[in-house]
């Protein structure tokens, strides 16, 4: 008797938790944007600092979240805690493949990425052997997919290097490479890429463009279906603010460098050097989705490819095959 009473009480509590947890009011007074670390997200720092989205959408609170990896952004978007997330194309495609209701709203940046090694005598990924350890953010990340693409082309097997991978965030990977211990290579992006290449002992043996065999958008902005449908005004304002932020970087470079230097805690000279690096550009055009999707489907990372662009992009997106 005692047990059944307790059980009923427990059941009741569970039901209460479930019923309250799910019933979130549809609130459009707030927009939450999630980004990650690195200079590829520079326009967002401009947008944040100059309050561009607030200007386009008065009366709305904008929340910014900086998250450690794409999986966390995806999970937050499933939980409806984030409306707009920024990430590379492969993690977006994995979410889409698994049935997440979201689409690309626009590009953000292209950026040089590359595989750096500290081992002398290694000139290409063909020279890596089973004792090498390659640090990169995580399986399924754009770095991992690019490495697999190069592996497929040069070694004949996309998964050949998978057993050498060590999951590390960019800063940890850089430290591990510089420590010259077990990590002998690091697939990374600016500013870590240029910092590593300043060391005479390090060399880049593979660039993102070589791996891909063409140009691609590094970071894209993605919004959930519910945000796009329930808050069309917010969506429009967001696109406008993004355009303005990107234009600001190119039209008011001195000011932009100042803002970015503060946001990234880097010197103005370093920021300027970065902005002038070949391959660095900001723009809302999206490139390379098809190549990523075809490769990922062929190698079992996703189960299907988008039949046409409407499946993965909102109508306004400026897309190039």
């Amino acid at each position, binding site marked *: 008797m005692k047990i059944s009473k307790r059980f009923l009480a427990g*059941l009741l509590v569970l039901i209460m938790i479930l019923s309250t947890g799910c019933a979130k009011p549809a609130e459009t007074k707030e927009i939450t944007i999630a980004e990650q670390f690195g200079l590829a997200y520079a326009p967002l720092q401009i947008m944040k600092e100059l309050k561009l989205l607030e200007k386009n959408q008065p009366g709305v609170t904008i929340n910014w979240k900086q998250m450690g990896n794409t999986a966390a952004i995806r999970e937050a978007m499933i939980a409806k805690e984030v409306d707009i997330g920024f990430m590379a194309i492969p993690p977006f495609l994995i979410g889409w493949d698994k049935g997440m209701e979201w689409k690309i709203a626009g590009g953000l940046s292209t950026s040089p990425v590359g595989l750096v090694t500290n081992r002398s005598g290694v000139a290409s990924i063909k020279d890596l052997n089973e004792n090498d350890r390659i640090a990169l953010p995580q399986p399924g990340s754009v770095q991992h997919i690019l490495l697999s693409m190069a592996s497929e082309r040069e070694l004949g097997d996309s998964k050949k290097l998978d057993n050498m991978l060590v999951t590390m965030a960019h800063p940890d990977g850089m430290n591990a490479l510089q420590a010259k211990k077990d990590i002998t290579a690091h697939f990374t992006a600016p500013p870590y890429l240029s910092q590593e290449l300043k060391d005479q002992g390090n060399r880049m043996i593979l660039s993102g463009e070589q791996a891909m065999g063409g140009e691609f958008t590094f970071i894209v902005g993605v919004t959930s279906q519910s945000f796009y449908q329930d808050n069309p005004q917010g969506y429009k304002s967001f696109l406008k603010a993004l355009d303005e932020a990107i234009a600001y970087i190119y039209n008011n470079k001195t000011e932009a460098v100042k803002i970015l230097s503060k946001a990234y805690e880097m010197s103005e000279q370093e920021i300027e050097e970065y902005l002038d690096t070949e391959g660095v550009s900001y723009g809302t055009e999206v490139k390379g989705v098809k190549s990523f999707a075809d490769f990922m489907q062929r190698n079992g990372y996703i189960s299907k490819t988008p039949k046409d662009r409407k499946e993965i992009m909102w109508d306004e997106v400026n897309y190039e095959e």
Partner: protein
Amino acid sequence: MKNKKLIWILLLLALWQAVALSGRVSPLTFPSLGMILKALVSSIMAGELLSQTVFSLVIILEGLLIGTLLALVLAIVSRTGDTMNSFVDTLITLAHPLPGIALLPIIILWLGTGRSAIVFIIVHSVLWPLLLNIIAGFKATPKLYSDVGRNIGLRGIKLFYDIYMPSSLPYLISGFKIAWARSWRALISAEMVFGAVGGKGGLGWYIFKQRVFMDTAGMFAALLLIMLIGILIEEVFFNKIEKQTIRRWGMAEK
């Protein structure tokens, strides 16, 4: 008691299924039992999950062995006199509250990211609770027992082996239970923080991989497996040892 446990488990499973099928939750966050079982079976069939489980278990066993040996040595050392006793005591006070995961960055600097790093973390998480329990067991040994032992001529290691060990066995076993649970946690969290060890990786790495590829059912499948192994060890392995030793000797309740 056992039957009741089973009923509770069935009820919880039914509740889970009811929530999953209620239509209020997305399968991306709350997969149904069928999806989880399917993920479990297909991962096992692919050979991946089992080999990763074995990898995890082997590494834990290694850590448990080293940790147990160290704990025994330190426990014996602590019995050799007041000076050593206070030394071991100080060690425990300093090291016991440190979570293994907090040591991770330092361990990477010292030992790199290889297998030895994970074993180190497991040894750390096993050693201190086990040592505490062994010492408590020694202290709880009635003076009468050790006096009797000395009376019949037992000295040193012999005294330790014939008197202190059996007398403190209930403490040792509960120490092992804690050590086992801690080593699981240490292994899985370490793998989730810094990825695969030695290229292959165990269950923690498996869960992490399912997370980055958004296979929620696969994540739950791994959790289920961890629970099953836990139940197996607890209900079968420890139960059996207890039955054959301390319960048979009348040192614990049946």
